[in-house]
């Protein structure tokens, strides 16, 4: 094993690696643009079909929401089941600012995001020292408490019936008569969330997050303040999720607790999409969304009428099989294949 660790009498001049190990911003930007272009294709093809356009709109939205969740849970290793709270804060804040004070949703999502970031940092801070499962059920508890409060404080939230936003079309209102407007809106959100994830992954905070996820002691020894890093990731993830919530509110125009705090449809869904697609990768959440959301919607439409619950049995079974056989998600499976191809035995060895 002579190649490893040959003693050096004097330092070798720095070698330029044969291939850039970290892709350049140039390459990343092109991949990003290319990916978005591919994601845009269904929109161009399906713009006439209202049914599929609706599904596509949800797909874009949830891709962005899953990417937002992945910032904290995938990169940071903090498996949150309480992101429904941030989603709801975004929905309520945007809806209330619009309905009560006539603030355009385009502007309202900003204070909504800020509020979500602040509240998120506050409530998650005491839970950071909890490990794995305990952190998950603590965040779950946040979701449940928030549900009860949202139902209870009727004067603010409209109680269990929630807030209805009347249909007053207009771009400034973020209410579109043409459903393609909404699809484009959600596409924009997905593009934003992805851009944030990409930039984060290649930033100091991103690397620090990964280090904290992998080994907190090693991270500290490298000069990383673990709490500060987790707080920043929480704020970012909460803010993005809130924006998605605000957009959702303007799409469905009904803001009610049973929908917003639903675990299978919202809180756990973000986790589901990221896990299936590949948690901790940039593209994973998007892949997960494009796989699961259309499948579920299609199954619901197909089977929803016949035997009650059948489509969910299928979804649940798919989820179970994915959990058992695709541990690292789709992105991980693709990655593994690429690794094997890259290191395939070459002739002459």
């Amino acid at each position, binding site marked *: 094993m002579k190649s490893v660790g040959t003693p050096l009498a004097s330092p070798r001049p720095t070698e330029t690696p044969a291939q850039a190990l970290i892709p350049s911003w140039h390459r990343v930007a092109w991949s990003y643009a290319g990916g978005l272009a591919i994601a845009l294709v269904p929109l161009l093809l399906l713009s006439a079909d209202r049914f599929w356009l609706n599904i596509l709109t949800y797909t874009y939205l949830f891709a962005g929401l899953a990417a937002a969740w992945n910032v904290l*849970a995938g990169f940071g290793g903090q*498996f949150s089941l309480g992101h429904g709270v941030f989603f709801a804060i975004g929905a309520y804040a945007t809806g209330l600012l619009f309905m009560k004070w006539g603030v355009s949703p385009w502007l309202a999502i900003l204070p909504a995001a800020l509020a979500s970031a602040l509240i998120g940092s506050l409530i998650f801070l*005491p*839970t950071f*020292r*909890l*490990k*794995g*499962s*305990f952190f*998950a*059920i*603590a965040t*779950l*508890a*946040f979701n*449940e*408490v928030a549900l*009860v*409060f949202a*139902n*209870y404080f009727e004067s603010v939230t409209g109680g269990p019936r929630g807030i209805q936003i009347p249909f007053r079309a207009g771009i400034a209102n973020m209410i579109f008569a043409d459903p393609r407007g909404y699809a484009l809106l959600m596409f924009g959100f997905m593009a934003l969330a992805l851009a944030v994830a990409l930039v984060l992954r290649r930033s100091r905070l991103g690397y620090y997050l990964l280090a904290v996820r992998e080994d907190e002691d090693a991270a500290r020894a490298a000069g990383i303040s673990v709490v500060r890093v987790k707080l920043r990731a929480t704020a970012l993830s909460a803010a993005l999720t809130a924006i998605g919530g605000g957009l959702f509110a303007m799409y469905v125009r009904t803001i009610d607790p049973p929908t917003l705090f639903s675990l*299978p449809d919202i809180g*756990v869904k973000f*986790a*589901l999409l990221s*896990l299936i697609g590949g*948690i901790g990768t940039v593209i994973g959440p998007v892949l997960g969304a494009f796989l699961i959301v259309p499948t579920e919607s299609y199954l619901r439409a197909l089977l929803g009428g016949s*035997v*009650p*619950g*059948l489509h*969910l*049995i299928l*979804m*649940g*079974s798919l*989820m*179970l099989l994915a*959990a*058992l056989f695709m*541990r690292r998600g789709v992105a991980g499976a693709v990655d593994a294949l690429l690794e094997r191809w890259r290191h395939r035995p070459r002739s002459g060895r």
Partner: protein
Amino acid sequence: MDALLHVLVIGMLLGGIYGLVSIGLNLIFGVIRIVNFAHGELVMLGMYGAYLVYSTMGLSPYVATLIVVPALFVIGIVLYRLVLQPLQTESSMQIFATFALLVIFQNVVLAFTRGEGFSVASGVAGMTLPLGEIRVTMSRLIILLAVTAAAIALHLFLKRTMLGKSIRAVTQDRQAARLMGINVERTFLITFGIGSALAGLAGALLSPIYTLSPGIGGNFILAAFAVVVLGGLGSVAGAYFGGLIVGLVEALAGFYVDPELKQAIWFLIFLAVLVVRPTGLFGQVGAEEIGFREQA
């Protein structure tokens, strides 16, 4: 004063229900450290199992426990072996898999029952017992008695039997237990079976009290987690007293504060416990598991 007494009695009976539902989860969570979202569904299966026995054989749900409990034990073992054991190294996938099981169970039952609500009737269950001024329903009293008996039985089992001792060893230190020759995987398997059987017991005994519906598991799962965390992992006393406390808090909160806010109150307590004292009231689990470590 009367009203307070009434509330306390209600609280204790409710606490019995929570305790019974949680005692199995406590065992599973404490020993194997799995967040089993499907635990409420196991209770639900127990309830429907009792109904099945009742409707096909005409047996009282209390007799049905003799069938339901072993059945759930087997179901638990199968579930663990096929789904949970392969995912032991990946806790987020494991959590996610139990959630998938939740969805599957709920909807399979929904598909079979077509949304029809069922009730189980039992002569014994309907009887009421006067306790001073208050009338206590027999079915709830039976539950309180059952959870007390189960807690004592489980405690003795863990303390006195070889299997129980190996379960305790594995709870405290997996590595050390393995080094001492304990088959950790088999211990987990049996523990999950016992926890599921206890869920089945809860389900069967609860069937006279609630109208059965596929989603009824959801009523219990979050309360069960609150009880488990409050009482402390790996502690039978913890599940028992934790259940009573949660029940009492819910009843008192409903009476003094606002019935609408009941659930939020015990969640807030649960969060407070998690943050301040994650080992719970009686827990003996090593604090490092929960993230505590001596820090500068």
